């Protein structure tokens, strides 16, 4: 009963590293690996594989395999008995985050380079009985030393500075593992420059119907923080407009009572990067919590003109920015053309509007040649997706994609929606404003540098 372990597969479906599986037979992990590989082979696209696979077992307890894709790896978490798959996914996500923190990028290569670290992390994060142990990155860093160049150098020269500290000598003597009274923050943190940064990141998800009416739109935001503060700082962050925040999910460090009472985030931050809170942007009053009516104006309009005929079709899509101050960046529009599509002929062009407008984004890119050169298209023949990329869409400019395609089947079957992803820098939909950030520290007196910035992205499905 519980989470039986973790198996990491490379992109060929071969296991690279797996944790102990001491409480089960040796075939047990193999059954799970096979099940995942078989399912992947059968599925039309990898995303269609059910993330929870039932594994019929010869023994008395049936099991399920929960798996997640991360980079070029697939993480498997077999669970036996009746365990909530959400527990497995929550744990896998935590584990992947920890790996990311330790190794920078999570890939087959970095895992191979640091397999001993990964093994130690397996041991420390998951108990043999199937229950998560230590998952606070700050606490973990005390017991599993992150690989760094310094560390590598030392291990080559045969010295281990950090482990010496851990054994109870040197400067960290007082700061041995698990000596901190606050589980998410280690003691004895010291910085020459004390700084704390907050990124307010918002993501819009919307569906627009054939007539250009927004069917649903949701903005989810999170506040990412990077704390580099000495000692045990106590922060309190208040907003000028906390009423836009709904459905909040808070980092365990936040004092719930303060938040629920005064809408002030009061916390002792962990050291380093962490997500302070997640929220949903909503402008309704809490008395009528019906988020059905769209409350965010979409940043652009699309006029899709797609015609299907026998064995092919033609399209003429225009995208016009609705914003007058912010530029849309990294705009990617995707259209799935359906099985057997090919023979694509396309042209991209920049229409009128916004031409004379010089904004920050444009001047930043003044080096590159202007006009339609920054828009391009490509066709992914494996996924049958036509991609239209525009690096920067200046305010109120308009762009168009024009072309045709043929299909092997008589009746073309493209998906009836265009999916558009984009980023907007220095902008938030909710206009959430930080009112004040107070950092108090009982022992040391320092004035940290504080920074806040906003960033947003979006994903809109425009049906036609």
């Amino acid at each position: 009963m519980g989470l039986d372990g973790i198996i990491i597969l490379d992109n060929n479906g071969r296991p690279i590293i797996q944790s102990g599986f001491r409480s089960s037979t040796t075939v047990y992990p193999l059954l799970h690996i096979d099940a995942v590989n078989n399912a992947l082979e059968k599925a039309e696209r990898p995303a269609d594989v059910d993330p929870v696979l039932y594994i019929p077992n010869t023994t008395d307890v049936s099991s399920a395999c929960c798996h997640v894709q991360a980079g070029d790896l697939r993480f498997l978490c077999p669970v036996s008995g009746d365990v909530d798959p959400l527990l497995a996914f929550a744990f896998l996500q935590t584990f992947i985050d920890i790996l990311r923190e330790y190794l920078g990028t999570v890939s087959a290569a970095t895992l191979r380079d640091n397999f001993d670290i990964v093994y130690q992390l397996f041991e420390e994060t998951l108990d043999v009985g199937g229950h998560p142990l230590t998952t606070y990155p700050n606490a973990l860093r005390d017991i599993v030393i992150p690989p760094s160049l310094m560390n590598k150098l030392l291990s080559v020269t045969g010295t281990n500075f950090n482990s010496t500290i851990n054994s109870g000598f040197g400067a960290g003597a007082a700061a041995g593992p698990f000596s901190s009274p606050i589980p998410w923050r280690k003691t004895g943190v010291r910085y020459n420059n004390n700084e704390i940064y907050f990124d307010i990141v918002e993501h819009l998800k919307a569906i627009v119907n054939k007539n250009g009416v927004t069917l649903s739109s949701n903005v989810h935001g999170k506040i990412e923080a990077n704390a580099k503060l000495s000692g045990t700082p106590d922060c309190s962050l208040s907003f000028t407009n906390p009423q836009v925040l709904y459905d909040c999910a808070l980092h365990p460090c936040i004092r719930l009572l303060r938040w629920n009472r005064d809408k002030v985030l009061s916390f002792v931050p962990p050291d380093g990067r962490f997500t302070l809170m997640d929220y949903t942007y909503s402008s309704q009053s809490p008395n009528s919590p019906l988020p059905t009516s769209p409350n965010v104006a979409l940043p652009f309009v699309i006029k899709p003109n797609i015609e299907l005929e026998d064995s092919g079709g033609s399209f003429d899509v225009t995208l016009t920015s609705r914003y007058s101050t912010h530029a849309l960046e990294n705009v990617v529009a995707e259209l799935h053309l359906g099985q057997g599509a090919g023979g694509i002929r396309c042209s991209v062009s920049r229409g009128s509007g916004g031409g004379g407008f010089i904004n920050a984004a444009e001047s930043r890119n003044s080096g590159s040649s202007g006009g339609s050169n920054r828009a391009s298209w490509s066709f992914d023949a494996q996924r049958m997706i036509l991609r239209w990329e525009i690096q920067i869409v200046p305010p109120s400019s308009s762009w168009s994609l024009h072309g045709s395609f043929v299909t092997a089947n008589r009746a073309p079957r493209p998906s009836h929606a265009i999916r558009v992803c984009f980023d907007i820098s220095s902008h938030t939909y909710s206009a959430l404003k930080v009112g004040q950030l107070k950092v108090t520290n009982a022992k040391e007196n320092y004035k940290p540098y504080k920074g806040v910035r906003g960033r947003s992205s979006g994903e809109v499905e425009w049906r036609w």
Partner: protein
Amino acid sequence: MSVDYLNAITENASRLGMRIQESLSEHTREMNLSRTSASYFEADDKGKNIRKQLDSSSDREKLDAMKRLIALISKGRNVSEYFAQVVKNVASQNLEIRKLVYIYVLRYAEQEPDLALLSINTFQKDLNDSNPFIRAMALRVLSGIRVPMVGNIVVLAIKKCAADFSPYVRKVAALAIPKCYQLDDSHLPSLIETINKMLNDTSPLSIGSVAVAFEAVCPTRLDLIHQRYRRLCKLLVEVDEWGKVDLLHLLLRYARTMLPKPIINSDGEEVDQDIELLLSSVEPLLQSRNPAVILAAAQIFWYTGPPSVHGKVVRPLLRLLQTSKEVERVTLSYIRVLARTDPSLFSPYFVRFFMLLDDSRQVKAEKIKLLVSLINYENHQSIFRELIEHTADPNDEVVADCIAAIGKCAELIPEATQTCLSALTEMIKSNHDVVVSNAILVLKQLVQAQLSQKSNITSSTNGSRSALKIISSLAHRIDDIRHPQARACVIWLVGQYCASDQASSGIAGMAEWAPDVLRRTAKHFSTEDVLVKLQIITLAAKLLVLNSTEQTLALLNRYVFSLARYDLNYDVRDRARMLSSLLAGLTSVSLDYDDELTAAEERGGVVLRAEQVKVILFNGKVNVTNKDRSEPSNVIIGSSAIITGKPTLNDNMIPDWLEEGVESALRDSPDDALSAPVPVLSVSSADPLNNPSNMMVSDQNVGKPSPTVPNGRKWASNLDDFFNEEDTNEDDESSEEDEDEDGDGEEDGEEADAVEDSIEGHDEEEISSEDDSENGEEEHDPAQHNVLRS
């Protein structure tokens, strides 16, 4: 402070410098900065040196060897042969080495119990180390060595660590308890005692693990919780994420077994204060960032709270949909289970379940089911439009799901039936086979449902008229319907429902469009699919029964039957032969050219009258209402059975409410009254079985069965009930499956035939048995007639 710090740094730096210098001089030749762990991983050394390295005096060599061993383990190699050498290093001063040794020892201890015993002394010594990490590590290895001999030592170690001042060590001690129990259950009494003590732990870090131990070792001893219940509730907010999940499960079980069920009556709800305490302590947890915590909290609200608080779980669950694709898929299934009991909670949020392009197959399927279950009069148009839009999905299964869902919506919202029918008829024009065939299947179900309503109410309703209109429009468009299944289905519909008493310009006794369908399909008979051919001859037979005097029809029939008689497919030939003998008595025009020569009396066998044939052909099948294969109602959210669709043996179960709960005074803890802690210990740690006075106390307090032993029984009887329930459920399910299979058969457009076949086959048997007797005695006939009449 900072001076100390500086000193420490300089001290360390100089130490480091010295060490580096030493090592540099020692290993200059091997110095190679680019070398990473990967070389351990890739190098396929046979490990000749490992033994030597492990025995060497240099930490660096040992570390190198250990890494090499771990690399071999992860390659799946069995490296247990080095156990003896490795065990020697358990006492290494280098923490790095020690950790790797622990990993190794844990993996192979079971295979090498004797050698593992050698290391036990070291671990026991480590239990006294000043570093809590070392103490915890030692206990983990000790409890991980699965050698029954060490059981006593482990119990002692657990006891010792359970009282450790570091909560981390206590946490590890609690997690070691189930392992120890598994190894040797004779330690149960002392383990329960330890758990009992640990339940008083006030550290939020370890209490979750204590709950784990409790559930694993003594789940029936809920009496131990009584006095801790309120404290646990209050502690809940502080507990770490994973501990919250475990503690919530325990509290849920406790509440269901021990607390009075909320009473809902006309004046409102009556909720016990202890349940209120639980709910108010759990509410902040709905703001957790961890999906597992949110779900565990939602379980508490849903399964212990009165209906008025159920709404609180809605938005937190909806928020989970954004977390990740995997979490979304699981949460959708849970929401579907909840929406089944109370759709009104989720129906305002139906737009959240609109489908996206990159949703996986399962997510789309779940969303479609959810949309159907959330449909009501206000939102049916939007949901309808959404479903209709997704009939253009590139995935065939999604299309089928959508169209079936449209049909279901039409049943649920009678006002929408017209819109639905027109949408479906529109789909029949599509040039995608999947759309057409699915649309026709659903149309057929709707038409049948409407017509069966008519037969129930007797007076012909609007519905049945419109249903006939649909059939007639389908009949007119028969040439456009190309998909064989769909075509077969339409032809069957035409034959089944063409009977009409109204005078029309066409042939009497049937709707005017029916013979035309036969004419048009007969033209292409030879190129049709087998399915369609079977239906064409059935249609021909039905029309002939309705009007056996019309000459053109008879000729058409004769044409079709003669084509069928020489068809390549034996099913078609069989069917034609059977039908033609069935119809033998009806018409003067023989259906077989060959038979023209044979005299009617020479054919032998039974000749049926028109009414009899009609019964056989038309009433062959009862309207099949396709029922949803409903899932067992006792599944609870948080159970993987919902996701996999397979019942797990040890299902998560929610105990039934105890109508009145146990006396709330039991939960009055002396802690609350600020009395001395001594009595707490004496009461709580005493083994109730050996302590009659304690039993007495509880008996007096409860005034009903004492909570200790009878609770165990209650639990067990629940188990029985549960399995009984499951059994019956399984029965239900299998019977539903049977029905389903019928339904499937129907969807093939062949169902009528299937049933007809069974009846006709029966006839045939009798007929053939008479054929055997060649000059069959005439006496048999009346008997046959009687049988058929009855």
